[in-house]
């Protein structure tokens, strides 16, 4: 990182009455396969408003300091789920994490999520994650003729799976799960959450099939109730509870 950039941004910040700005160190995990096979830490000093988000800090780095920094983001408002990363050792969305909530007097570490192949800097290969998602058939399946009107449902029936409809497929949960880290075969919390969304939907008729898929040796039974997923979910979904509900449905189906 060149010192000239630093001085320039510091100087310009001073001239614009920077009373609300603080100096924060971003410690970013960098990996570029075109340069080295090793990932390294790189520090960036930023003058930034503590009420801004980690994503704003990453933008500042990319736009003002080092254009080679690579990360995913799209909506910047916690909806698209593309910027899950490990910030200060915890999986979060960079666009929903305020710098003031992170103890900015210490360096803020930003790493890619774990358990998936890092392609460059903070970008990982999401394919195994989406493969598990596709495996649980996350779409409405019905038999018989299509009704001419919408498929109606009572408010209570809708309430049953309300929590799991909120998933944005950010992979924060799956990539925080130690069972998934050790062995990428586990379906992972996100796939189970999205199966839950249809298993408990009164309009759907393939719940049996989905339960059978999750009864697999790499399905719900590998869950150790570590609760990392519930802690990580930026949408506040009770992920572990959803997994337990699927287990219970499997058991009550048998006995």
């Amino acid at each position: 990182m060149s010192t000239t950039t630093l001085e320039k941004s510091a100087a310009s910040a001073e001239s614009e009455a920077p009373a609300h700005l603080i100096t924060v160190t971003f410690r970013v995990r960098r990996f570029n396969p075109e340069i080295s096979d090793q990932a390294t830490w790189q520090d960036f000093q930023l003058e930034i408003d503590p009420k801004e988000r980690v994503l704003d800090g990453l933008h500042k780095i990319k736009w003002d300091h080092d254009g080679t920094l690579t990360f995913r983001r799209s909506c910047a408002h916690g909806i698209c789920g593309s910027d899950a990363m490990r910030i200060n050792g915890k999986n979060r969305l960079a666009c929903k994490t305020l710098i003031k909530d992170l103890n900015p007097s210490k360096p803020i570490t930003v790493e890619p999520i774990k358990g998936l192949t890092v392609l460059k800097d903070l970008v990982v290969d999401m394919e195994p994650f989406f493969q598990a998602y596709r495996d649980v058939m996350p779409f409405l399946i019905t038999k018989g003729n299509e009704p001419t009107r919408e498929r109606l449902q009572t408010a209570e029936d809708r309430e049953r799976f309300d929590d799991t409809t909120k998933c944005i497929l950010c992979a924060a949960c799956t990539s925080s799960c130690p069972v998934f880290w050790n062995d990428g075969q586990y379906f992972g919390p996100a796939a189970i959450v999205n199966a839950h969304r249809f298993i408990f939907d009164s309009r759907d008729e393939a719940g049996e099939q989905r339960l059978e898929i999750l009864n697999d040796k790499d399905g719900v039974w590998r869950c150790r109730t570590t609760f990392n997923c519930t802690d990580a979910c930026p949408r506040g979904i009770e992920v572990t509870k959803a997994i337990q509900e699927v287990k219970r449905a499997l058991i009550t189906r048998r006995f």
Partner: protein
Amino acid sequence: MSADTSSAVDPVEGVSLYDVDNPAPVIEPPRKRTKKTPKSTRTNFELYGWLFMRLSGVVLVVLVLGHLLIQLVLDGGVSKVGFAFVAGRWASPFWQGWDLLMLWLAMLHGANGLRTVINDYAERPKTRFWLKNLLYAATVFTVLLGTLVIFTFDPNIR
């Protein structure tokens, strides 16, 4: 190119082994789901395994705590335990049954727990295979030996 080299990762000893046309190999996730991954196992084995762990756990709490209480706390503690004490207890079918049940449940509970640990932590399929075989052999041996002793115990042995 050299400009961003200095900004991103320092090449080892000045020369980079990798470049745009020859990127470094990325680290694959442990076992990526591929076309070759064995298809789902349509059995209820894991379901019954999970249920067994919960149920045997509850029963073991009673059995093991009772066992520890009798052996280590009541009637002068561990100093009373000797050949005569064991012989006296095993004269009753109740204690024989207690110990037999405890042996089987504890061994299967522990073996299934270790099986999960091996599944989680052994990385190569071969390591998994051998560790699990070792585990199963040890389990079968211990359970059979223990059962044999409980049933053929002779208090008059010299």
